[in-house]
């Protein structure tokens, strides 16, 4: 039942069509959203309520016991600090290096640029699992195994290629005239970089560093393989401590919520930055 608009050819949907679409959209929403809802819901339930049958879908009371327990009994405060330290260090180092590198490969002419670019892409072909053993051997040789550096260094190495590839598209999009105008106005290369290119790519830099943050924040494989000392656990590894003789579901869910919070905040901020607000110097 699709009528066409006589002049524009736009299809108007009938009420029935809208209902069908609405039904499937709602279904999809429930499938995607329900696990998250279940995690949040369970994190506020007491131990007994979690095992209740049938389970309550609407919360009766909000109980912070699981959160308090996660901090007091399981010491996730330490895990949070570890995660923050590892993530922030990685993001800072990765961003600084990739901003310089992506400026170079997108704006400067040097020998081996194209080879370097293909090399960056080639690094993306290997899954992390494949790299785990060589990384482990390297860390061991350098005497870093079990330290926080054994996480930070591989993270930086793994994140830089992605960051450079993403960022160089931002730099490549800046019109060459922006640079040339600065050149004629007497800017040196470093001045062009700091005063023109950096501010113009700012939204891209923020977006890419948020992406890096989320990637590192939620990383589990390397963190669980290289860290053995309980004091150095990151949040994702910390989740495993809730699995003892029996699983403390309430604490596990509360910690999951805590892990998800920064990612959610950053995602909502970054939406603004992904829409390049500084673009549009010229109407073309």
């Amino acid at each position, binding site marked *: 039942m699709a009528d066409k608009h006589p002049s524009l050819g736009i299809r108007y949907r009938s009420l029935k069509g809208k209902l069908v679409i609405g039904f499937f959209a709602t279904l999809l929403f429930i499938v995607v959203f329900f696990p998250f809802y279940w995690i949040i819901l369970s994190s506020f339930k007491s131990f007994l309520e979690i095992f209740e049958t049938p389970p309550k879908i609407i919360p009766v009371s909000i109980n912070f016991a699981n959160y308090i327990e996660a901090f007091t009994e399981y010491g996730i405060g330490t895990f949070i600090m570890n995660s923050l330290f590892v993530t922030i260090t990685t993001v800072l180092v990765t961003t600084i290096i990739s901003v310089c590198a992506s400026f170079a490969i997108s704006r400067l002419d040097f020998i081996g640029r194209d080879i370097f670019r293909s090399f960056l892409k080639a690094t993306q072909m290997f899954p992390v699992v494949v790299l785990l053993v060589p990384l482990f051997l390297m860390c061991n040789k350098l005497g870093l195994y079990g330290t926080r550096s054994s996480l930070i260094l591989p993270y930086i190495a793994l994140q830089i290629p992605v960051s450079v590839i993403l960022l160089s598209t931002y730099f490549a999009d800046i*019109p060459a*005239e*922006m640079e*040339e*105008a*600065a*050149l*004629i*106005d*007497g*800017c040196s290369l470093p*001045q062009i970089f700091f005063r*023109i290119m950096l*501010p*113009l790519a*700012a939204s891209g830099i923020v977006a890419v560093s948020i992406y890096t943050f989320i990637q590192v924040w939620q990383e589990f494989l390397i963190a669980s393989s290289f860290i053995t000392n309980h004091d150095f656990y990151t949040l994702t590894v910390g989740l495993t401590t809730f699995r003892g003789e029996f699983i403390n579901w309430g604490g596990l869910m509360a910690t999951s919520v805590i892990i998800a919070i920064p990612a959610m905040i950053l995602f909502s901020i970054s939406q603004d930055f992904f829409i390049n607000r*500084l*673009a*549009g*110097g*010229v*109407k*073309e």
Partner: protein
Amino acid sequence: MPRIVLEHVTKCFDKFVAVDDLNLVIEDRDFITLLGPSGCGKTTTLRMIAGLETPTKGRITIGDTVVFDSEEGIDISPAKRDIGFLFQNYALWPHMTVYDNIAFGLENLKWPKKKIEERVKEMMAMLKIEQFEKRFPSELSGGQQQRVAIARTLAPKPRVLFMDEPLSNLDAKLRLEMRSELKRLHVDTDSTFVYVTHDQLEAMALATKICLMNKAVLQQYDPPLVVYNKPVNLFVADFVGNPTMNFINATGERKGFNDVFVHMLGKDLVFHSSETIDGDVSDLVIGIRPEFVKLGEGNFNGVVYTTLPSGMETTVKVKHGEDMVTSVVFGSVDFSHSLDMPFSIVSDNIIMFEKASGKRIAIGSLS
């Protein structure tokens, strides 16, 4: 004061020759337009003088300074050439306010703060953009951005100002307005302007001298009216002027030093020039500007093909056997199609081209 000299300047991109052995002298305080169809090398030429592009061969001098010499390995950076460059897309820095955009170059020149402020205010007043001082470029219209770009370019008082099709992003009305302002600015700023355009009307209206290029080669370098009245070859004659010149194939036979018998449009005529006519006159193309074709009476009998009124003037196309002759009539007329239309060709500025080479060999009258 600066005089720009280009000697044997050549630019190749891989195997493609963008500019081929260009020799050009731009006198101080000239307003030069580099004119030509797209891809003719005009923008490349401009960018080479400005230092944004490195020539493959040749020598460029601005004033007393050699800014580029391929043999001596001299290549002075654009910043040190004392020039301004106005880009087609304005290239305003979107993260800076109008004030900061204009002041940027002056800060780099290490002007004292007070002098910068004075100069920026002066430029904003000159271009009537004072009210936008604190705005960002994205908050301005195309025409306003253009003004800011001009102010930014002029602020450091460059000796030479380069412009790369600066008006092509504006609408027709604004373009006319800015055209007259640019010409006025040229007088007021007392500097040399080099201007790239593909719009022959713009070139005619603005320039003191037109440098017409085609396929990487300089065709003609003369004042606009000389280019218009005495085009050196068929390309120039065809490119300049709107509506374009009539080109009529003819055969000829020499009558004397100054006269040639010409057979064209089914008639035998005599072409007379005040100067000696050199070259091969057997196969010719006769070039007649539309304004030299007088309609209504005469010994040629044509038929009206179309009439295109534009208000002030009317373009009439008349068919004469196989040939189509364009005429421009002052005022508004509207002839009905297929009307019999006698016409005559009246001028001392009829141009005779050699058909094989396309070169102009004479200017004169037909009788």
